[in-house]
C-alpha cells in the first residue's frame, strides 16, 4: 500500500511549496477525491505543472477545482487567495473575475480552441486589496483518458510590471509631446531622409510663418521652399547622414511670412533621432527666435557709433566755434579742460593737473563772487549754470569777457559729482553791447532833455520806456507806472478811446495819433497830442514803437476859447436874428394894430368935425372956418398915413398866393380905381407890350396903384401927363444892372412918366420909408408909397430901380425873375 501510495503519489514528488501543499491537501473532501483515485491524465498534468517553472494553473473536473504551481504562486500575492484556493471550486475561488473568465473557460470546456490573451487587465484580490493585474495567458483544454475535455490548463504570465512600464512610457511620451507643443522654444520632429514634418509646436509655426496644415506630413523644404537656398538643406542632410548634432547661434534666416520676406535670427540645434534599431530616422529641430535681441543689440551698436560720430562732431564744432569744454570733479576739485579752454584762459595747452582754484583765481575780483554764487545756485537748485564774467588771462593778464554754461551730474544719492560744460569768449559781444548801451544812454540823455514826453513800446504795444519828462510831469515813479500801468496818467474819459486807438495801431501798424488829457502831478489834466510811429527792420517787420506826447493845452484852450466864442457869437447872432424877427413881427403887428386902433378915434374926430361943420357952420367966424379946414386936412393926412402904413405892413404878412396873370388886367383895374384923378390930370396911360407874369395879384395891383398915383401926384402942371408902361422878357445880361444874373430870364417892366422927375442922386433914397423929396403942401404924400412898391417887388424876388431927371420925368424899372 505504501508503495502504492508512494507509487501513486509519485507525481506529487516534485520539490517546492505547491507540491508539498498539494500532497498534504486532504483531497477526499473535494470533488477530486483522494489522490490515489485521481485519473492518470490528471496525475500527468499535475506532474507537469508542479515541475514547471512557468506559471501554470489548472481547473479540473466539472467543478473546476483549482490547482497551481510555485511559479504561479506570486501572482496571488500575500494575504490573498493563496493557499486557500487550492482544491477550491473555480467559481468560489475567483468570484471577482468570474464574469470575465467564465466565457473563456466555457469555450475551452466545450471543445473549442485554446484562448490567447495578452496584457489583459484582470484585477484580482491579493495583498489585501483588489489589484489591477495584467496578464498574458492561454486557456488550453486538458483531456482525460477518454479524450474528453476534463479541465482547463492555464498557462500564464503576469505582465502587470511590463504593462505599467509601457503605460508610464506612453504617458511620458504624451507629456513630452505636450511639453514640446507647449514649449516656449520651437521644436519640430522631422522624419526620414526627406525631413517630413511629423510634429511641430506652435512656436515653430510662429517662427516659420506657417500653419500646421501648411507643413504637417510634408517635407519641410517643400513646405518652406525659401529654405532650400539658405544652407538649411545642407544642415539637415548633414545631421541625418552623420548623426552629428548641429548647433548655431543667431543664424540669419529669411522666411516668407504672410507673403513678405522677413529676416529673423534664431539660436537653433538639430539632433538626430534614432529608431529602435539604432538607425537615424529623424531629426529633432529646436530653436529660439532671438531677432528682437539681435535687432536691439544692432541698434545699440548703431547708436553707439552715432554717438561716437556726434562726439567727434561736437569736438570739431567746439574747436571751430572757439568753445572750450570743461569738467569739474566736485570731490577732488580737479578740472578737465580742453586744450582750447586752456588756451582761452591763457594756460599752456599741455598743462595738466589744473584745479578749481586755477579757474577761480584769474577771475577779476568784482566778478569772483558772482561766478561762485552761480555755481552754488546751480548745484542746489539743479539748474543750468550760466554766468558771464571777466578774467585776467593767466599769461598776459588781458581782461576778457567769458561765458560759461554747465550742468551738474548727480549720483544716486543726489550728490553732485561733476559739473560739465563749455566756455567761450564773449568780449566782442560785450563791447558791442557796451556801445549799444552807450548809444542808448545817449538816446536817453537826449530824450530826457526834451520837453515832450517820449516813450517806447514793444511790438505787443506794452510801453517799456518813458523819458524823464513823463516822470516829472506825472510825478510818478517808473515803479508806480509799471505797477499800475501808464493808463493811470490818461484822463478817465479818454482811456477807452486811447486803448481802442492804440490797439488799432499796434494791430495794423498804422501811425498812432491822438489828442488826450494827461494828469499832471498837481492833479490838473492837460491836453496832449500823442504820436507814435512803428520802427521797422529792413524787411518791414515792426521792431518797436516810438511815441511822443506834446502838451497842446495852450493851443487847445485857445482853440476851445475861439470855438466857444464863435459858438457864442453865432448863438448870439441867431438869438439876435430871432429877436429881430420877433421884433419885426411885433413891429408889424404893432403897426397894424396901432394903425387899426388909431383909426377909430381919428375917424370919430373926423366925423365929429364934419358934424360941427355941417350943423354949426353959421356960428363959426371965417377964421374959425379956416382953422377948422386945416384941422380936417391934418386929420385927413393922418388917415392917409395910417392907411398906407397898414398897407405897408400888410405886404409882409399877407398870404403869398402866386398866380399867372397878364399885367394888362391888373393895370386896367388900377386905371379904373384912379379914373377920376386920371381924368382930372388929363393924363394918358399908354400900355405897350404886356406879358404874363407869376405874381401875387393884389400886391401888384397895389404896386401899379402906387406907381401911377405917384406919377399923377408929381405931374408937371405945364404939360399933360403921359405914362408909358411896357414889359418884356429877356436874359439878365441884356440889362445894365449888376444885381441881375446874366443867364437868368427876367420880365422887365417899365413905368415912365414925363412929370417933375427928381435929381439922379435920390434914385436909391426915393424908396426909403417916409422920404419926401417935395414939400408937403405942394405934393401930398405919406412917403410910404414907393417903400411899399419896393417891398412888393422884393416879395417877388425882383429888383426895382428908379431913374430920374429933374423936370423931365421919372422911370421905374422892375425886373422879375421868370
Amino acid at each position: 500500500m505504501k508503495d502504492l501510495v508512494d507509487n501513486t503519489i509519485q507525481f506529487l514528488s516534485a520539490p517546492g511549496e505547491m507540491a508539498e501543499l498539494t500532497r498534504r491537501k486532504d483531497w477526499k473532501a473535494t470533488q477530486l477525491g483522494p489522490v490515489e483515485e485521481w485519473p492518470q491524465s490528471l496525475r500527468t498534468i499535475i506532474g507537469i505543472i508542479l515541475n514547471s517553472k512557468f506559471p501554470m494553473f489548472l481547473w479540473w473536473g466539472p467543478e473546476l477545482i483549482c490547482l497551481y504551481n510555485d511559479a504561479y504562486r506570486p501572482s496571488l500575492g500575500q494575504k490573498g487567495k493563496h493557499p486557500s484556493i487550492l482544491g477550491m471550486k473555480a467559481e468560489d475561488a475567483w468570484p471577482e473575475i468570474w464574469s470575465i473568465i467564465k466565457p473563456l473557460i466555457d469555450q475551452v470546456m466545450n471543445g473549442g480552441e485554446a484562448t490567447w490573451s495578452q496584457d489583459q487587465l484582470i484585477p484580482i484580490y491579493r495583498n489585501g486589496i483588489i489589484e489591477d493585474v495584467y496578464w498574458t495567458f492561454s486557456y488550453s483544454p486538458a483531456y482525460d483518458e477518454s479524450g474528453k475535455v476534463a479541465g482547463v490548463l492555464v498557462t500564464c504570465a503576469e505582465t502587470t510590471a511590463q504593462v505599467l512600464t509601457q503605460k508610464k512610457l506612453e504617458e511620458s511620451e504624451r507629456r513630452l509631446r505636450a511639453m514640446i507643443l507647449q514649449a516656449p522654444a520651437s521644436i519640430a520632429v522631422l522624419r526620414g531622409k526627406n525631413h517630413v514634418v511629423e510634429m511641430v509646436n506652435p512656436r515653430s509655426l510662429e517662427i516659420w510663418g506657417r500653419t500646421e496644415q501648411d507643413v504637417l506630413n510634408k517635407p519641410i523644404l517643400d513646405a518652406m521652399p525659401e529654405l532650400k537656398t539658405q544652407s538649411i538643406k545642407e544642415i539637415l542632410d548633414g545631421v541625418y547622414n552623420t548623426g552629428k548634432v548641429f548647433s548655431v547661434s543667431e543664424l540669419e534666416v529669411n522666411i516668407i511670412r504672410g507673403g513678405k520676406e522677413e529676416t529673423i535670427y534664431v539660436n537653433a540645434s538639430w539632433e538626430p533621432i534614432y529608431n529602435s534599431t539604432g538607425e537615424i530616422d529623424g531629426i529633432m529641430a529646436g530653436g529660439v527666435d532671438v531677432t528682437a535681441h539681435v535687432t536691439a543689440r544692432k541698434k545699440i551698436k548703431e547708436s553707439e557709433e552715432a554717438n561716437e560720430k556726434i562726439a567727434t562732431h561736437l569736438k570739431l564744432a567746439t574747436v571751430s566755434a572757439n568753445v572750450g569744454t570743461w569738467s569739474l570733479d566736485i570731490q577732488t576739485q580737479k578740472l578737465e579742460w580742453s586744450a582750447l579752454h586752456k588756451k582761452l584762459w591763457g594756460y599752456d595747452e599741455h598743462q595738466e593737473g589744473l584745479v578749481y582754484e586755477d579757474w577761480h583765481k584769474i577771475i577779476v575780483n568784482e566778478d569772483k563772487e558772482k561766478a561762485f554764487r552761480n555755481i552754488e545756485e546751480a548745484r542746489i537748485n539743479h539748474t543750468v549754470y550760466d554766468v558771464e564774467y571777466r578774467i585776467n588771462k593767466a599769461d598776459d593778464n588781458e581782461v576778457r569777457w567769458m561765458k560759461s554754461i554747465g550742468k551738474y551730474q548727480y549720483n544716486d544719492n543726489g550728490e553732485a559729482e561733476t559739473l560739465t560744460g563749455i566756455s567761450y569768449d564773449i568780449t566782442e559781444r560785450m563791447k558791442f553791447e557796451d556801445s549799444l548801451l552807450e548809444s542808448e544812454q545817449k538816446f536817453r540823455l537826449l530824450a530826457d532833455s526834451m520837453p515832450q514826453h517820449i516813450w517806447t513800446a514793444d511790438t505787443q504795444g506794452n510801453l517799456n520806456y518813458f523819458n524823464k519828462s513823463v516822470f516829472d510831469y506825472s510825478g510818478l515813479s517808473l515803479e508806480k507806472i509799471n505797477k499800475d500801468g501808464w493808463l493811470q496818467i490818461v484822463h478817465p474819459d479818454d482811456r477807452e478811446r486811447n486803448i481802442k486807438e492804440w490797439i488799432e495801431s499796434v494791430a495794423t501798424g498804422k501811425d498812432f495819433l491822438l489828442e488826450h488829457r494827461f494828469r499832471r502831478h498837481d492833479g490838473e489834466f492837460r491836453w496832449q497830442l500823442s504820436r507814435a510811429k512803428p520802427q521797422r527792420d529792413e524787411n518791414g517787420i515792426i521792431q518797436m514803437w516810438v511815441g511822443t506826447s506834446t502838451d497842446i493845452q495852450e493851443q487847445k484852450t485857445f482853440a476851445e476859447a475861439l470855438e466857444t466864442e464863435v459858438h457864442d457869437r453865432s448863438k448870439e447872432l441867431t438869438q439876435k436874428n430871432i429877436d429881430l424877427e420877433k421884433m419885426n413881427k411885433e413891429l408889424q403887428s404893432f403897426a397894424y394894430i396901432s394903425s387899426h386902433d388909431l383909426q377909430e378915434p381919428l375917424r370919430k374926430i373926423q366925423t365929429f368935425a364934419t358934424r360941427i361943420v355941417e350943423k354949426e357952420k353959421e356960428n363959426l367966424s371965417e377964421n374959425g372956418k379956416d382953422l377948422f379946414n386945416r384941422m380936417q386936412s391934418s386929420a385927413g393926412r393922418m388917415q392917409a398915413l395910417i392907411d398906407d402904413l397898414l398897407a405897408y405892413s400888410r405886404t409882409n404878412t399877407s398870404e403869398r398866393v402866386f398866380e399867372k396873370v397878364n399885367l394888362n388886367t391888373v393895370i386896367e383895374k388900377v386905371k379904373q380905381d384912379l379914373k377920376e384923378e386920371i381924368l382930372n390930370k388929363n393924363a394918358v396911360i399908354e400900355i405897350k407890350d404886356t406879358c404874363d407874369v407869376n405874381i401875387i395879384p393884389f400886391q401888384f395891383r397895389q404896386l401899379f396903384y402906387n406907381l401911377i398915383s405917384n406919377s399923377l401926384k408929381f405931374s408937371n402942371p405945364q404939360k399933360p401927363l403921359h405914362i408909358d408902361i411896357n414889359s418884356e422878357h429877356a436874359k439878365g445880361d441884356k440889362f445894365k444892372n449888376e444885381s441881375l444874373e446874366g443867364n437868368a430870364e427876367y420880365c422887365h417892366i417899365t413905368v415912365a412918366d414925363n412929370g417933375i422927375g427928381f435929381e439922379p442922386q435920390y434914385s436909391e433914397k426915393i424908396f426909403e420909408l417916409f422920404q419926401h423929396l417935395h414939400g408937403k403942401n405942394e405934393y401930398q404924400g405919406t412917403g410910404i408909397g414907393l417903400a411899399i412898391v419896393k417891398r412888393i417887388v422884393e416879395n417877388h424876388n425882383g429888383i426895382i430901380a428908379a431913374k430920374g431927371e429933374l423936370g423931365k420925368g421919372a422911370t421905374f424899372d422892375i425886373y422879375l425873375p421868370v
Partner: protein
Amino acid sequence: MQADSLKILLADDDADDCLFFKDALDELPVTASLNTVKNGVELMSLLKSNSINLPHVLFLDLNMPRKTGFECLSEIKQNENLKQLLVIVYSTSSNPEVMDLLYHKGAHYYIRKPADFVNLKSVIHKALSLTVQTKLLPPSKENFLIQP
C-alpha cells in the same frame, strides 16, 4: 309907410358909433326902426329868442367884447332859423383879407365906417336901398363893399 318900415338891428359896442348911426339914419328919408345891442352875446340871445320876428337887416360890428362879429356871423349862418338874415358888416377895418373872409362866411355887404358924416349917411342910405332891392338874393363879390 309905417307898415313897411324897415326893422334895423345894429350890433356895436361903441356908443359914439351907435349915435352916429342913429343921427345918420334920422336924417335919411327912410322910415326905419333901429334896435341896438352892445355885444355879440346880447345879439345872439336876442336873435334866437325872436327868430320869427327877425329884423330886415343886421349891421354887425366886428370888434365887440364877449363875442366878436366873426363868431356871430358864423353862428347866424349855421343856424337854420337865422341864416336868411341879411348881414351887413359895419367895421373900421379896411383889410382886404378880412373882407374876403367875411364874404365867404356869408355876409352880404361890407361898410367901412366913414370918417365923414355925409359919407356915413350916404353908405347907410345905399345899404338900406340895397337891402330893399336885393332882399335875399345872394350877395356878389364885386358889390360887396358899399362905398359912399
